[in-house]
């Protein structure tokens, strides 16, 4: 049975990739952000997960609103990054893990999740920035990635309760995969931010910290929010919390917080880092 060894949450904004490209990590603006990552990198280097199941949203690279899936999953052996239009550098291909991907996809549809299943999928900054961040120098080619993409761009979006359910089903699927590979989860995006409208610039530090607490100890509590609640409290793009909630759904038993960082603002967002372990399957 594949071993789900832990989980990481992280922002995925393009500005991070730009800061790394321009070697700004040690500047006063960026230092408190990048200081959150060495413990996570250390954990990844020590535990060496074979596979990352990465929850993200596409920001209009692969999917357009001509045909917009609620949940999609990649089942390929490789994914290409591509030009997103505003000049962040394209990074090398991401390695996939088609066997486990298909196993999860089969299991999800069996459980009543109506996935869009992708054998070809361009992955944007939502997926690539976290990889660049965890393996500086884009040294992530050895890690196999399974993209799980959640609609956060167009209403109707899946609600927090549904994202938690998705994660639970994925966790179950991972544990039922006949292999001794190790798997870690990345929940990306968030936290509070709003890019659009007269209300642009909202950050809700208190809410972000509360969400991080609840994510560790009581994720079910976060399902009391609707997406509209999240928008009202944390800004139009706070819905990206759904990726964290989905990720958390895949963990089980007692969850331990090994590391946390919160810093705001980075670009227009509140940025949270969590490193979590859970009770291993017995």
């Amino acid at each position, binding site marked *: 049975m594949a071993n789900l060894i832990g989980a990481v949450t992280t922002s995925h904004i393009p500005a991070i990739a730009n800061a790394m490209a321009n070697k700004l990590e040690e500047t006063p603006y960026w230092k408190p952000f990048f200081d959150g990552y060495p413990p996570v990198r250390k954990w990844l280097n020590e535990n060496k997960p074979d596979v990352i199941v990465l929850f993200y949203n596409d920001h209009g690279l692969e999917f357009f609103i001509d045909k917009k899936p609620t949940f999609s999953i990649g089942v390929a052996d490789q994914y290409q990054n591509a030009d997103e239009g505003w000049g962040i550098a394209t990074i090398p291909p991401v390695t996939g893990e088609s066997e486990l991907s298909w196993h999860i996809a089969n299991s999800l549809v069996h459980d009543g999740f109506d996935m869009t299943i992708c054998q070809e999928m361009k992955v944007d900054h939502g997926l690539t920035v976290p990889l660049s961040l965890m393996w500086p120098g884009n040294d992530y080619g050895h890690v196999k990635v399974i993209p799980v993409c959640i609609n956060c761009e*167009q209403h109707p979006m899946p*609600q927090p309760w549904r994202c938690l359910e998705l994660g639970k089903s994925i966790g179950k699927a991972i544990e039922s995969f006949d292999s001794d590979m190790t798997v870690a989860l990345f929940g990306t995006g968030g936290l509070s931010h709003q890019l*659009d409208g007269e*209300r*642009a610039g909202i*950050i809700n530090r208190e809410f972000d910290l509360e969400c991080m607490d609840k994510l560790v100890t009581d994720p079910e509590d976060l399902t009391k929010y609707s997406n*509209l609640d999240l928008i009202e409290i944390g800004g139009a793009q706070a819905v990206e919390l759904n990726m964290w909630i989905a990720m958390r759904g895949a963990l089980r038993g007692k969850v331990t917080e090994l590391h946390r960082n919160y*810093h705001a603002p980075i670009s*227009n967002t509140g940025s949270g880092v969590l490193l979590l372990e859970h009770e291993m399957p017995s």
Partner: protein
Amino acid sequence: MSYIEDQREVEGTVLFDHRMAKKGYGLNKMCFSFNDQVGRDEFSKDEAGYCDKFGLTEIQKKAVLDKDILTLLKEGGSIYYLAKFAGLLKLNMQDIGALQTGMSVEEFKAMLVKNGQGK
């Protein structure tokens, strides 16, 4: 309460819902094309002509030519596709924030810092 029954309005926020997705379809399709250098170049060569190619309304076209983000949002633009338009204009998210809130970029950044500190 069902999403569709939840008629709350969030001040200063245009939800990109079915109304906007329909209204802004051509506009967003144009912005989606900015993922490609070919689309960006063609737009830069003839902005109005490129808008017509995607069937933008006159209001949308004027707002594109005026770089009027707030109007583009109200006319169905999605921030995710408009971001590609902004990138083409060499504007970052703080520039866009300043434009939308009527602040200077420095004022907008100061507000972000203040909000980030929970003040």
